[in-house]
C-alpha cells in the first residue's frame, strides 16, 4: 500500500466545510468492510472480491477506482447486502448487516427508476415504505427534487427524462430516504462527457449540502480525484486493495481543479498504479 498526500493547490477555504474529525479510539466507523471475500458460483467459481477491508468514516466521500471487471460493483452490492458474501463482515455503525436495508442507499449504474411512478412518487417511495405521512413525504420529495434541480419535472414519468435527469432523480430518491451510507456504482458511466461534468458538479454541491457518507465507484480517475476525500485503488480481478490515496484539495471544489498541477500529479500517480494492473493482465 502506498500513501500520497496532495497538498491543497488553492487558498484554504475560509471555513473548513467538514472538518474531518478523527474518530475516537474504540468507536466504530460509519461503514466497515472487513475482510470481505466473494466467490461467484460455489467453491470453484470466480473469485471476484478477495479479502477487501475498507473503513468509511462519517461524512467521508470515499471513491473506489479499478479496471473494469475487477469487482467494484460486486463489492458495492455486497456492502449494500444485495449479494451474499462468501466470508467477511459488513458493519454500519458497528452493527453487522446481512441483508439490504434503507440505511444503505444506492444509485445504480443502469436506470432503476420505477417506470410506473412519476418522478415525485419515485422520490417519495422510500419515505412511504417507512410509513411517513403524505404531507411530510411531499415536502421531502420537494426538497430533494429542488436539490437536484428537477422541481418542475415532479409530475412526469421517468420515460420522459434524459439519462442525466434520470440519474439525478435516482440520487434524489436515494437521499430522500436519509441513508447512513450512500453507494454509487458508476452512476454517470452511461452519460456523455458533457453531461457527466454537469452531474459531477451537481453531486459535489449536493454532497456539500447533505454531508452524506458516500462510497462511490468509478473507473474514471478524474472523477475519482475531483469528488473524493480518499481514493481506493483496486487490483485487476480478483479485486484486492492496491493503494489508498488521501485527496486533500479544499472544498468546495470547482471543476477546473483538474487543470491544477497537483491534480495532474495525483492523476499520474493513480494512472501508474492502474497501468501496472492492466499490464499484468496482458
Amino acid at each position, binding site marked *: 500500500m502506498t500513501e500520497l498526500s496532495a497538498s491543497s493547490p488553492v487558498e484554504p477555504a475560509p471555513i473548513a466545510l467538514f472538518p474531518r474529525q478523527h474518530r475516537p479510539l474504540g468507536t466504530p466507523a460509519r461503514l466497515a468492510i472487513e475482510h470481505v471475500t466473494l466467490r461467484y458460483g460455489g467453491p470453484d467459481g470466480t473469485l471476484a472480491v478477495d479479502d477487501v477491508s475498507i473503513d468509511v468514516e462519517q461524512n467521508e466521500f470515499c471513491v473506489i477506482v479499478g479496471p473494469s471487471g475487477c469487482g467494484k460493483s460486486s463489492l458495492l452490492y455486497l456492502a449494500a447486502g444485495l449479494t451474499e458474501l462468501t466470508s467477511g463482515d459488513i458493519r454500519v455503525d458497528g452493527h453487522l448487516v446481512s441483508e439490504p436495508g434503507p440505511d444503505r442507499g444506492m444509485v*445504480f449504474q443502469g436506470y432503476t427508476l420505477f417506470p410506473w411512478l412519476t418522478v415525485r412518487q419515485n422520490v417519495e417511495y422510500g419515505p412511504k415504505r417507512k410509513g411517513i405521512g403524505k404531507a411530510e413525504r411531499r415536502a421531502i420529495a420537494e426538497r430533494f427534487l429542488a436539490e437536484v434541480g428537477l422541481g418542475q419535472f415532479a409530475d412526469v414519468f421517468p420515460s420522459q427524462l434524459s439519462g442525466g435527469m434520470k440519474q439525478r432523480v435516482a440520487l434524489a430518491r436515494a437521499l430522500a430516504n436519509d441513508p447512513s451510507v450512500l453507494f454509487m456504482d458508476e452512476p454517470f458511466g452511461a452519460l456523455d462527457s458533457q453531461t457527466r461534468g454537469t452531474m459531477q458538479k451537481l453531486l459535489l454541491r449536493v454532497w456539500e449540502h447533505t454531508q452524506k457518507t458516500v462510497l462511490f465507484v468509478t473507473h474514471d480517475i478524474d472523477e475519482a480525484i475531483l469528488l473524493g476525500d480518499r481514493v481506493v485503488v483496486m487490483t485487476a480481478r480478483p479485486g484486492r486493495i492496491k493503494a489508498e490515496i488521501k485527496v486533500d484539495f479544499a472544498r468546495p471544489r470547482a471543476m477546473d481543479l483538474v487543470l491544477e498541477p497537483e491534480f495532474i500529479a495525483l492523476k499520474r500517480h493513480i494512472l501508474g498504479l492502474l497501468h501496472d494492473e492492466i499490464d499484468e493482465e496482458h
Partner: protein
Amino acid sequence: MSSRRAPWTRMTTPFRDISRRAVISAGIIVWVMVVAAWWIISHTNVVPAMFLPSPEKVGAAGVRLLSDGSLIVHTLASLEVVMLGFAISSIVAIPVGLWMGSYRAVQAVLEPLVNFVRYLPVTAFVPLLILWIGIGIQQRVSVIILGTFFQQVVMIADSARAVPRDLVNAAYTLGTKRSKVVWHVIFPAALPEILDTLRVTLGWAWSYLVVAELVAASSGLGYITIKAMRGFQVDVIFMAIATIGVLGLLSDLFFRFLRARVAPWAHR
C-alpha cells in the same frame, strides 16, 4: 425532413411511421376489396349459393335475427360464457403467474405440470367435461378456463421473470421488505405485459367458445351455427361468425384502451 421523403420510401423503411390518413385508407380499401371479391364470387356462381351466400343475403339474415331479438339473446349468452371463463381464469392466473415468475420454488413445482397441461388439446376435454359436469353453463365456462388459464400463467410468469433485477435491488435499498417485493415492484413493473397477455388470451377465449357451444349448448353463437348447419342456412352461419369477429375486435379495442388508462407510463 420526413414529410419531404417520398411516401414510397417511408412505406418501405422498417419501423417508419406512415400518415394517419394512409393507415385509415388502407384499412378501408382492404375491406372493400374482400367484400367486393366475395360479392363477385357469389354472384358469378363459381361457388354454389348453398355454400357461399352473397353479402346481401348475410346482411339480410343479420337484420332478420336482430329484429326477432335472437341475435341479441345468443350474443349475450356467449358473452356471459366468455366473460365468466375469462374473468375466473385471469383472476387466478395473475397471482399464480406472478408467483411462478418470482419464486424459483413455485416455478419448480408448477412449471412441469403447467407446461404439460397447456399443450393438451382443449377439444379433447369437452367430452370429459360433459361427463363430469353435464351440459350446463359450467361446462362451457370450464372449456374457456381450460383453454386460457395455463397459457396465461406461462406468459405472466415470463413477464415477471423479465423484470430487471436492479429494479428489485433498488426497491430493497429503499426499504422494501422481501415479502412485499412481488406486490410493490414485480407486479407494477410487469403490468403492461400482463395487460397484453390478457388481450391476446381473450382472443383465444372467443375461439374456445365455439368449441364449447358446438357440442353442448342450447343458446349462444356457436349453438345457432350448429342449428343453421342442420337447416342449410349458410347465411346464418356467416352471420354468427361475423358477430364473433366483431365481438373479438371490440374486446381487443377495450384492452388497448384499458392499457392506455391503467398503464399510461408504458404508452406505445
